[in-house]
């Protein structure tokens, strides 16, 4: 297994990541617009000042020179400095926002799995019942409704009309950071981000369990007189969960990219607003930094997915 892991990382992961950064940097730099475009808002600015700024940022160089300068710094562990007026290190910008994004993503994963699995089980156990129809209908809606729409709907309902939860944002200055406080601020964004996960996990769970239920060994279990509860939860569920568990790894990327949108709706202090602002301003180092980090996360996610196969299914071994 270690050999497999090393092979995945060095033969696959690193070349893929490298290729990804070349492509990304290329796409970012050929996009129209420039990191100094926003200086247009300053009427009194001098033409020479803009040229000087371009030189200071190194964007007067050609694409390969810019890319290799960037790569050289990254290999030394330096993601560079933001192109905006703050000139702060990209790593600081990411570090101070990362915890909020992780908090939101992990909460939505827990919510997605915690709700999705039981709902999927219910739906499968009572297949073709009224309950099943309701669940499959809502799962379908949950997958189809875009998160920004669902988010605004929740905001309208719970914050504006019922006034029971905060309208997005985070703790006010001076507000005590209690556990219940976190729950209050997290509920709506985590639910919004988790909706798709809940719905798709419920659907996967339903079909996976139904498939297992129709297996011969379950007929045997029933034939030898086991209670239905034991049949389902002890024999069927454990086997049905195998394909679901492996989904974790594959869902990480979509959770993180979804977080970017959801964070913007709820003014959640994570990476989302930074990412969108960076795109609008052509802030190359910030865009590269965030995307590189997501790429690494996605890569780690897919390794976890592979390994979890072996972990939950004894028939699979990595040599």
């Amino acid at each position, binding site marked *: 297994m270690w050999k497999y892991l090393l092979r995945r990382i060095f033969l696959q992961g690193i070349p893929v990541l490298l290729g990804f950064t070349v492509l990304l940097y290329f796409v970012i730099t050929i*996009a*129209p*617009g*420039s990191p100094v*475009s*926003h*200086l*247009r*808002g*300053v*009427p*009194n*600015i*001098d*033409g020479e*000042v803009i040229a000087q*700024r371009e030189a*200071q940022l190194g964007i007067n160089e050609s694409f390969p020179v810019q890319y290799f300068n960037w790569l050289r710094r990254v290999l030394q562990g330096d993601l560079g*400095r*933001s192109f*905006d*007026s*703050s*000139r*702060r290190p990209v790593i600081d*910008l990411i570090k*101070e*926002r990362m915890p*909020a994004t992780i908090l939101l993503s992990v909460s939505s994963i827990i919510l997605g799995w915690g709700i999705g699995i039981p709902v999927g089980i219910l739906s499968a156990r009572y297949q073709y019942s009224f309950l099943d129809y309701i669940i499959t209908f809502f799962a379908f809606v949950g997958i189809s409704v875009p998160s920004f729409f669902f988010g*605004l709907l929740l*905001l309208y309902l719970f*914050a*504006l009309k019922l*006034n029971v939860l905060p*309208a*997005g*944002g*985070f*703790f*006010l*200055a*001076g507000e005590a950071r209690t556990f219940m406080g976190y729950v209050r601020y997290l509920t709506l964004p985590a639910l919004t981000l988790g909706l798709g996960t809940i719905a798709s996990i419920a659907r996967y769970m339903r079909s996976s369990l139904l498939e297992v239920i129709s297996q011969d060994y379950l007929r045997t279990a029933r034939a030898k007189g086991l209670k239905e509860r034991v049949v389902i939860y002890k024999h069927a569920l454990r086997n049905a969960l195998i394909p679901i568990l492996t989904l974790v790894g594959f869902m990480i990327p979509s959770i993180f990219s979804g977080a970017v949108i959801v964070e*913007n*709706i*709820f*003014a*959640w*202090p*994570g990476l989302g*607003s*930074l990412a969108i602002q960076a795109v*609008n*301003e*052509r802030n190359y180092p910030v865009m590269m930094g965030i995307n590189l980090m997501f790429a690494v996360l996605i890569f780690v996610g897919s390794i976890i997915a592979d390994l979890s196969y072996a972990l939950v299914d004894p028939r699979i071994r990595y040599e």
Partner: protein
Amino acid sequence: MRKSMVLVLVLVLAFSFTAAGQQTPVQGGTFRYGITVNPRGMFNPILNTEVYDGYIIDQVFDGLIYIDSHLEPQPKLAKSWEISDDGLSITFYLHKGVKFHDGVELTAKDVEYTYLTILHPEYTGVRYGDFKVLVGAEDYKGGNALEVPGIEVIDDYTIKFSTAQPYAPLLVSFTYGILPSHLLAQTPVGELETLAFNLNPIGTGPFKFVEFLTDQHVILEANEEYFLGRPNIDTLVFQKVAEDAIPIYLQQKRVDFIGLSPEHVPQVSDIDFVDIYVYEALSYNYMAFNLRLDKFKDAAVRQAIAYGFDRETYVDVIREGFGIIANAPMPQASWAYSDEGINSYSYNPELAKKMLAEAGWTPGKDGVLTKDGMRLQFELLVPDGSRLTEQMALLFQQNMEDIGIEVDLMFMEFSAAVDRVDAREFDMFTMGWSLSVDPDPYAIWHSSVPWNDPGFYNDRSDELIELGRKETDQEKRKEIYAEWQQIINYELPYLFLNYGVTISAMNERVKGIDTEPGPLGPLAGGELLRSLWLAE
């Protein structure tokens, strides 16, 4: 709401019975200032470019002067100033005993350091243009001189700035916060932008910097030793708010003050303890013609397009009245505004058609006007992001079709649109300007500057612009700009859309504010934060 729109329109002004004068200010409390954009964390008055960082800088630092709600310069760190008779120099006399937040006294050395840094060859900020007129500034910037004769420290509390020629816009530029030279002077100027100081600023201002949590808030606390008196409030918080959540934040009293966009107004006006203020801004929106193109060379064509565009509908319906139709580049909020001899180009499609016919344009087979084989057809570049602008563009397209002009709309992401404008690859585009306090139009309209996007050139216009910045008598300057506005109004290098208005909301518990605000709003551009107080 035409041109007769009252200067300041206060929508809801629920006056309490006791007049403001009878109440004595209460000390204490936290004022929450809502912001919808996260500051970048560049709290350095000579390096920031973002407005939101500026809000914090204005409270932590003091300038030599500040601009009051009538846009007039007022003394701050400088207790007074003197302009020489020849108009070539300004001498500032500083208050004595002003302390930075670390206890060190501010002197003319700090002022000198701040302005010399702006002129330094390695300076990374964007303020150089404001001060390059100082004697010797260009040589110093170019690395050909080690000193700037135009900045002269007379003694610890007196500093003199001089120019080779009278330069009227100079005085109002001295608002930038003064930096503590004892903390910064040893750092090379090129590295200033990476200093930790920028995230933990130390100035002389009414508030001390406490904390910046990105995308959450900035906390400032009252400076007990402030030389103009301690602020009434204890804590000033700039609270980040999601655009969509603004009405809820006001309703739940999570912010005391925040800027609004027109779509929030109906919801916010339902909140009985919040007042809405509407006031003119120093800004305008426009559509620029590319005068390098033959089809736009004739002023009659541009004028006909102006007559043919129903800007009344644009302002009254699309903008729901939040704006004032503009016909020249000086907003009504500016002292340089003049309507003398200004044509209002009121919507008149018949006149537009007649003018085009007289200019030699005749309808072609498809109904589009043609002249000498040239079709009157062009592309309007619309940077996306604003619903109002998009609707405006659609209305324009429709109106133009009615008078025989074909307009293709090109919606484009902002940075990409700027690229096209800079490369002069446009027929027409629409954008807006936010102007500084001084009305000097040089940076946008002089034929020599890069921001003159239409490629407008007019001898008399250049001459007047040059005259205007040399004239230090405001009345005479106003006359110069009045004539200049008539030229622009006739030539129409831009089709002017509207002067901007700003809308903001304030909780009633906040006292000591400007309830009939000028262009800087009820907080007078933040200046009142150090004196306002909270009732309750």
